[in-house]
């Protein structure tokens, strides 16, 4: 197993076998900001970036990550989206929020001034049962403060 590179740091791991990236992040590295809502790739709470692209870490085998850089919410704590989510009240229970912010970070990296339609398209894979969607839309629209 090559080192797993997470948020700019290399981690030497035991052979991960068939364990998912989400399990490795949460259980072995203690990076519990990545949540598991369904464990089968349907809710988006476990979203992390692989070389900047959002992926569902609960259905990504850790062994397939290879050389790619993993970015979790812990690596995005100073991202302006964190403040804009809090400012806009774009979270209630907050369980889906790290995944929402990780997805949104990829969106604003691609398109710094996203339209409402683009937000609705790109964020549709991140479920929020509390229904904070209108505020998420506002938070992403105003992410630069």
């Amino acid at each position, binding site marked *: 197993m090559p080192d797993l590179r997470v948020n700019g740091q290399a981690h030497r791991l035991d052979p991960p076998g068939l364990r998912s990236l989400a399990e490795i992040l949460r259980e072995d590295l203690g990076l519990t900001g990545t*949540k598991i809502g369904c464990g089968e790739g*349907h809710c988006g709470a476990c979203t992390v970036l692989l070389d900047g692209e959002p992926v569902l870490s609960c259905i990504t085998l850790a062994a397939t990550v290879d050389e790619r850089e993993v970015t979790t919410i812990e690596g995005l704590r100073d991202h302006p989206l964190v403040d804009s989510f809090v400012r806009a009240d774009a*979270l209630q229970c*907050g369980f889906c929020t790290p995944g929402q912010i990780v997805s949104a970070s990829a969106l604003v990296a691609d398109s710094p001034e996203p339209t409402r339609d683009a937000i609705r398209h790109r964020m549709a894979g991140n479920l929020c049962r509390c229904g904070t*969607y209108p505020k*998420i839309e506002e938070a992403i629209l105003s992410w630069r403060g």
Partner: protein
Amino acid sequence: MRHLPEDRGGDSLLARLIRTEKEVEGRYTEQWVVVEEDDLEQWPAGPRDTVGRPAERVTGLARARGEARYTADVQLPGMLHTAVLRSPHASARVRRIDLAPALAAPGVRAALGPDDSDSLTGEPGYPGAAVAAVAADSFAQASAALELVDVEWDVLEPLLDPDEAVRRGSLIDETTHYERGDLEQGLAEADAVVEAEYRTQTVLHNALETHQTVCEWEGGRLTVYASTQWIWGIRDRLAAHFDLPADWVRVVCRYMGGGFGAKTEPGDHGFLAAELAQATGRPVRCALTRREENQATGNRHATIQRLVAGARSDGTLTALGGDYVMAVGWEGWKSSTAGPMQMLYACPNVRTDEAGAKINTGPNDAFRAPGFVEGTFGLECILDELAAKLDLDPLELRRRNHADSDLVDGRPFSSKNLLECYRRADAHWARRDEVRARSKGAWKRGVGLASQIWYGGGGPPSYAWVRMGADGRAHVITGHQDIGTGTSTALAQIAAEELGLPFDRVEISFGDSDRGPYATYSAGSSTTPSMGPAVRAAAADAARQVIEIAAQRYQVEERVLRLENGNVLSADGGSWPLEEVTGLLEDGQILGKGSRGPNPAGMRILTFGIQVAEVAVDVETGEVRVDRVAAIHDVGRVINPLGASSQVEGGIIQGLGHTLSEQRLLDPVSGAVLTQSLDAYKLPTIADVPEIVTELLDIPDPHLTSLGAKGLGEPPIVPTAAAIANAIRDATGANVRSLPITREEMLRALKEARERERPLAGQAR
């Protein structure tokens, strides 16, 4: 205005021990409560320095940065993981079960079968009922071991049809009958009568954090980390189960990933985690998978509503009747689906019967305004069908039948501003012509509305402490839990307001039964109206002590001093920074304590509102899109307008799922749940969300507590389905009568409407 002796039922002495009524999700009980209430005058209506102004939620940063540790994130040294064997059958008997192969599997530390725990059964009555449990070093090992448990089943034929269950007398409890006036006479007096059957589906809570608990024993005492809406309820239930003093059980829930009603009990998983931890001497986690969650953790039960409504030609209601069948499940309780019919309108003749069908499906549990969401769909739809028949304006029909006092038990309302909600709805309702005119081709557009009634007054007991140190900052200490509704933020605002402190100088601790006084559950729209007055009283107690100290220090009378914006101000113009006064304490502390007083005697405390929905319907494909929902609610004083708007939006979006997409589907033969994943069970996404306009009246209830604030968690979901269905009728003339409004249901209703408009066409051929 509020007058405590009168509101206590004429008792001029503020009693320490009183008998008071407590309402839980519409069910009333009487109980003794020891109170020590501050006789605080309500603040004037409108925004104050902190209360009534938008505040960012106090836990926001920790949650957004992924630092918040939920129950799902609790990892204790040596912790074991549990996998639960759940019945694959809706109705069965375990003929033989052998746990030995599982116990011999790698990593397994303990296994329990039906004879070992009250939470396990050898006669499962629904698919997903817990039968056996295995604790192992990892969840993967526990799951693998479960495969080795050898079970022989006698599979029985399940009873799945609620109407058939009623016919066979398979009921969860006695049928509930309610009657006022004479329904038959009311129908005879009516100029128009509508009879219709409405159906609502079973929906699943699907909080993103599944039900889970971690238990650890220490010196005979139990520590419980639980994803729960009520740490004190868990404490009491587990203490009773293990025959322990209540405070030997400590329950912690600092961050919580959503509940919506289904997390007020320990649950099978909670008892199993505690029992397995006791058996192994290790900390044990029992966390449900998403698929278990959707079989075995409660639901909003389906309903069948056979309704009749009659009115005179001027719209005056003369008769409302309902036969309700609730598909409760194998266990659980029937929610008050007839409540809106009994309570919402001033109809003299009302008769309802509610039967709870005991069938081989997962038990129901409270789900955001249980019963009233379902009952409002039926009632508010039949009211619009009646309006159409009488050619009356639906909003006018509702105005005409406004109830000035509660007709169920003759009590006055503590406050009711529904007519003001209606007045504000006019502007949204007036968009109707313009919206309809935008119909184009197959896409028909229309506007609909529905009224809301629900509880939300809260009640005692609930307590709070406020501590202040030398630095002039305040710390609110409570034993409540914030499940994401933002109550901790509202409580901190209330303390800041009373102490005259900037919001950023107030901290709040909560979610630990060892580190704060008793608090109510986060359910029933009751947390803010229950906890808020306790926090205000505690802050007032602390403020009084600050003023006493300042009066002595500066040689002024206490009565001329007040706290404002972090200063002690005197009437003659003197001003001292608060920390100058509290600085005298050095390591000393000021401790204020407060409690929630009783509710006003003899009054009905309810929340009200109306929602106006705009929809577009493709009459060729049956696709329904909701474009806009305006929500106007009367919930008393609003503490945090920002958090309140989030609650309204969240309620409407959950209501949107309930209306259009969500449905627990069962295999009609076996009773197996087919919608176990979040792929199969259709929650709303960000792409489905309409424009939502929130208007809260923000009129304090003059009789209710020192705040005049009611709860807001549930009201917004109550009228959404009916408002959407009524907008669909406005757009297309079709009467949708079954939730969810799938394309099949929409096309069925359109076909029925076409046949209704051409009644002679068939005969002519």
